[in-house]
């Protein structure tokens, strides 16, 4: 079917670019491998929790950095969480931003922390957008009766 072929090509091109631009890394491939016919919604479920969890973490980070006296240990705790969850879904750029963010927490550098909060936020919304597009493409392929091309 022509439309399935077109959608599949779109999907492959898109996901290839996501890997090339480091939005996603091999861990996303691992998640895809862990999904099978008995749990076809696995990736969607995990990614959805990641989105929810991350929004909350971003709020917690913003409010903890707005305190009169900033508790850098607390901030570090939140960044550690974010680093973990982004790593688990393969959101490489978010994870890398968190690694740098942690350094500023350890140095108790408020300016650095605020800058990196903005960066992490930016990277998160970018990858969220990309993942939503990717998952939408998958749905379209399935609805058109096709199979989602497996990742290398």
């Amino acid at each position, binding site marked *: 079917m022509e439309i399935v072929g077109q959608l599949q090509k779109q999907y492959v091109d898109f996901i290839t670019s996501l890997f090339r631009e480091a939005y996603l890394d091999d861990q996303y491939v691992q998640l895809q491998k862990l999904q099978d016919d008995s*749990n076809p919604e696995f990736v969607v479920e995990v990614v959805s929790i990641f989105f929810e969890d991350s929004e909350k973490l971003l709020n917690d980070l913003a409010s903890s950095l707005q305190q009169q006296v900033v508790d850098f240990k607390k901030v570090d705790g939140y960044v550690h*969480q974010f680093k973990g*969850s982004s790593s688990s879904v393969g959101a490489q750029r978010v994870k890398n931003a968190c690694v740098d963010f942690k350094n500023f927490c350890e140095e108790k550098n408020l300016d650095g922390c605020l800058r990196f909060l903005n960066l992490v936020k930016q990277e998160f919304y970018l990858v969220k957008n990309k993942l939503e597009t990717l998952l939408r493409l998958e749905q379209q392929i399935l609805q058109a009766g096709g199979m989602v091309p497996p990742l290398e």
Partner: protein
Amino acid sequence: MEVDGSSTKGLLNHIEKPHVLAVDDNLTDLKLVETLLKNSSCKVTTAENGLMALEYLGLGNDKQGSLNDNGSKVNLIITDYCMPGMTGYELLKKIKESSVMKNVPVVIMSSENTPTRINKCLEEGAHMFIPKPLKYSDVKKLRCQLMQWGN
């Protein structure tokens, strides 16, 4: 001697479905592990920290008040290492100290895979150490184990 078909079936269901307690303070990771285990035909109970896990197992501080036998029904505990309050390592120790729970296998997950950490956990009696983020090959290994324990 008569065998009651329905109760035997119930018993088989209990044996076939391992009951796993999953412990992690990271909600994304907890969801990931929970979903993976449920898809491997396990019954899953989740806890967001070591204290909650111990309370569930009936090993909480208020030992006299812990009249539950949840612990005896759990076939596997899988826990993150790095958690606030009580680490996975400390949780492992408490489990191994308990007469009821000491033979239940404990699997530790961690994003830091230094030999020191791995050896420390294995020496304390951890059954398996799985690096984070979870890879397909490690989950496969765990699933094989679960199938054996389920029987």
